[in-house]
């Protein structure tokens, strides 16, 4: 993977307040989710990556160059910040057009790109209304439009879907997924774990200013040894299945659910367990309705790592 973004020994603090500490990270093309509790350092990291803040110690390079105040590089980077930052008396169209011109596009091109960006986020009908009359979700979409306007190679989004209604949420997630498929680099910071899960399985988890985990969600889950994997199986004869499973060494516990139709197995050897399970089902012909891994999701990974 050629790294698009590279951070080495990156640290930043504000007076006594810690932002991030000793971050070493490489992010390549595709979609990467940036997670962490409030105050963990996500916004600080994104602002440094977008060239808005200067690193205190260490470096952060994008496309091989240091990014702080590097205005030539800004052409290739798009940043959608978390907070409101538009001129309220302008109309949506005027604002986006202004930004397009500031990027250096000539009048005709700027007009075309602005129209395209606004159409993509569904603000074309309201383009002539003043921004102060926009609802919260519309302003969020406007911010998004401003970041994709110049079709950047790298896109950084801080809570891009906040306040956006379900219809547009789906469309924007699709847009982001398409960006990823086109080989661009997208870094999304969000609190809403189901959103991240729907878009990517590559994550970076930041907590207390440091990186707690990095990589594919499922691989990370596999590495968390302290918590045995849970597998939940719903079938017509749970106790029969349980009997057959209990004999194996690698099944650490079996719990029956209240509904009497499912059991949850805990195992430290997921691989061996599944081979055994599939074999058992194939041989005995037990009717299985469902097999799921309740804690192989982002919320569980998050909980285990942040430590409850």
């Amino acid at each position, binding site marked *: 993977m050629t790294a698009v973004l590279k951070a080495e020994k990156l640290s930043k603090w504000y007076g006594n307040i810690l932002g991030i500490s000793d971050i070493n990270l490489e992010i390549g093309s595709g979609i990467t989710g940036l*997670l*962490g*509790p*409030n*105050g963990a350092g996500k916004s600080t990291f994104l602002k440094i990556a977008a060239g808005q803040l200067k690193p205190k110690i260490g470096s952060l390079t994008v496309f091989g160059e240091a990014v702080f105040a590097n205005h030539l590089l800004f052409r290739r980077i798009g940043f959608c910040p978390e907070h409101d930052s538009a001129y309220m008396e302008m109309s949506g169209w005027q604002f986006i057009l202004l930004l397009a011109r500031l990027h250096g596009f000539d009048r005709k091109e700027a007009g075309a790109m602005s129209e395209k960006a606004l159409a993509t986020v569904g603000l074309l009908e309201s383009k002539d209304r003043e921004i102060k009359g926009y*609802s919260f*979700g*519309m302003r969020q979409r406007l911010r998004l439009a401003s970041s994709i306007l110049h079709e950047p190679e790298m896109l950084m989004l801080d809570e891009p879907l*906040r*306040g*956006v*209604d*379900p*219809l*547009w*949420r*789906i469309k924007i997630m699709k847009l982001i*997924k398409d960006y990823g498929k086109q080989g661009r680099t997208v870094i999304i910071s969000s*609190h*809403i*774990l*189901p959103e991240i*899960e*729907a878009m*990517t*399985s590559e994550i970076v988890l930041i907590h207390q200013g440091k990186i707690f985990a990095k990589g594919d969600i499922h691989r990370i889950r596999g590495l968390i040894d302290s918590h045995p994997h849970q*597998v939940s199986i719903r079938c017509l004869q749970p106790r029969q299945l349980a009997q057959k499973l209990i004999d194996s060494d690698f099944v650490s516990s079996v719990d029956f659910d209240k509904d009497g139709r499912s059991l949850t197995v805990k195992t430290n050897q997921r*691989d061996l367990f*599944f*081979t055994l*399970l*599939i*074999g058992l*089902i*194939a*041989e005995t*012909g037990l*009717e*299985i*309705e*469902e*097999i*799921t*891994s309740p804690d192989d999701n*982002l*919320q569980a990974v*998050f*909980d285990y790592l*942040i430590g*409850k």
Partner: protein
Amino acid sequence: MIKLENISFSYGNIEAIRNVSLALPAGIFGLLGPNGAGKTTLMKLLLGFLVPASGRGEIMGQALAEKQKSLRRGIGYMPESECLIPGMDAVALTAYLGELSGMPRQEAMKRAHDVLYYVGLEESRYRQVETYSAGMKQRLKLAQALVHDPKLLLLDEPTSGMDPAGRKEMLELIRDIAKKESMNIIISSHLLPDIESTCRQVVIMNKGRIVAEESIAGLKKDNFNIYEIKVVGEQAPFFAKLRSLNCGVEEKDQALFHILLPGDVAPAALFRAAHETGVQIRHFRQSRTSLEDAFMDVINEANGH
């Protein structure tokens, strides 16, 4: 519990709500809809911030727009916006608002403590509220909505701005409150997973009208004979084997596949095929429409697509 008949309201020339009629029994409901559908307007009408241009309504037996004060006594509102009364600590603020709802001072104080414990702010309840983090402010908003023990809770984006841990706890709190009999809750939210994890019934609005009022289970239809699976191992021989059995294989996303089984093939065949080709099926479930898909369907239908 809530009865609305032909309620309409416009902001100047813009019709926000048109001929809305609703009959909600007791329970917990989700209020969904795209931006501009009228959800916020509806909530404001229920609270009496706005007066309907036409139509009648009743909340818990009291007439809308007439018995404002007495209605509000029984309603607790958790606004979406960042709202605070600065210069007070959480206990003072909660007790103050409780007093304004009609509680005697000492009762308000006692109840404020109780409610702050309940929402998880016990350790910071003596701190000035301006110093609170986003998640704490959300909890405080819930606390002030609960202090006077309302019969109807209106929650507007209850998890907005909270981190995943906070969101989980907030949703747990809401589920816990919903368990109490004689508590009615209406949640307005953009986040379908939030609604799904707390409500069983939803009201969907679009363009100022109500387009659906049903249970979540009713909205989601089961698609028979399509199974979603995730496999680990050599996929190609496994899928080839399935195709030889006349099964369709579709890649969805994030390593998720949909297997379309013809009517005469039992799911057991999947497992046999997996065992034979040495592949592990780690996720197996009958494919269900998600709430998202159901929501899109309802809105598209209402828009005439």
